[in-house]
Every structure is written in structure tokens, then in C-alpha cells.
């Protein structure tokens, strides 16, 4: 059951990230999507991939995007 909830979280946060007007919030929602994906990988019997995705997808990629947003502009005009 938990895996279906996680799939829904992944997709919904991906869609929310794309319709957000504030790019910083979009970056954080990308991290949400990546984190939910990491738990999904754990359920799919792949703990190594889950660990990588948890760090890269939920921490490092959002930091990249957030730094880029901080150095450019925050509003999606």
C-alpha cells in the first residue's frame, strides 16, 4: 500500500514543482519528488540505488537548482 502512496507523492510533487510561480519552492518540491523516489527504490529491493537517490536527488540536485535561482531571479515572470 505504501508504495502506491509514494508513487502518487512523486508524481504530484513533480507536477506541483512545474506549476509553481516561485522557483525556490519549485526546487524544494523537486527534492520532495526525489526523496519519495528514493523510498520507492528501497521498496524495489535496491538499497544502494535508494541511498544514492536520497543524497543526489533529494539533497544535491535541489541545492544546485536553489543556488542557481539565488544567483539569477526568483520569480517565474
Amino acid at each position, binding site marked *: 500500500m505504501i508504495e502506491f502512496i509514494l508513487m502518487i507523492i512523486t508524481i504530484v510533487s513533480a507536477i506541483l514543482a512545474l506549476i509553481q510561480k516561485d522557483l525556490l519552492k519549485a526546487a524544494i518540491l523537486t527534492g520532495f519528488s526525489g526523496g519519495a523516489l528514493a523510498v520507492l527504490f528501497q521498496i524495489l529491493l535496491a*538499497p544502494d540505488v535508494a*541511498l*544514492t537517490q536520497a*543524497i543526489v536527488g533529494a539533497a*544535491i540536485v535541489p541545492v544546485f537548482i536553489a*543556488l542557481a535561482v539565488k*544567483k539569477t531571479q526568483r520569480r517565474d515572470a
Partner: protein
Amino acid sequence: MSQILKLIALPISIILICLGIMTILGGHITPGGGFQGGAMIAAGVILSILVYGLGNSPIEFSHTYIEVFESIGALGYIVLGLVGLFAGGFFLYNVGADIFNIIPASIQTVFHYPDTTNAGIIPYLNIFVGLKVFVGLSAIVIAFAGFKKLVEEDAEQ
């Protein structure tokens, strides 16, 4: 950033770095390995940079040595592969485990990891990849954080 954040950020990043080292060293037994551990260490460094700012972060390393470190990681990997090529005839042959029995025993004992799991050269490769991933990701974030906005430059002039 608030004072509380500054107080707890340093312990958290030190814990992350220690966890990362643990993940790298146990990569052949437990989930994890070079990438994951290296990325964890990099996450610790990134956290400290984000909270304290680029200039006065307690955990920092000199900009000039970044590419030397990165190259050492990849070069070490290649050199371990070349040992396999010249000793056994195959690039990246696992000279420590030697499951096909094609290299002399003296070379095998040099590269055998002192562990009951018979992992051969895998732990050494993990260490090199971990070093490389850690330095690579931190270098990208340091470059991003050091990039000057147009507005900031105007203010400086």
C-alpha cells in the same frame, strides 16, 4: 542565517562526513559504496558552506588543490586497473580476489584486502571513487556559490 542554525550545522556536517567515511569503507558488505559515501561527505561540506557562507566556512579546502585531488582519484582508479592489465592481462582484473587463478600469489597478497569477505581490490576502488565524487560535487557547489550576481557586481563598483 539564525544563530540556532549556525550552532547545529557544524555537528551535523561532521556527523555526515563520518557517516560518509563509514559508508565508503563498508561499501562491499553493506548498501552503499564510493558514490554514496562521497556524496554524503560532499553533502556535509555543502551544508557547512550554505549555512556559514563561502568565506568563513569551518570546513573548507583550498581552491587550487581541487583539480589535483580529483585527478588523483581517477588516476588511482586507472592505476589499479593497469596493475590488473600488466599482471593478469585484463584491464581492471580483480587482482586481490583472483577468482581465475592467473596471477602469481605474491601480487595477490599485496592487493588482498584484509577482510574475511575476500573483496580484493573493490575497497580500494571504493576509496578512490569516494575521494573523486566528494571533491567533484563540492567543487561544483563552491563554483556555484562563488558566482557573482550582476547586481552584486554593480554594487561593488
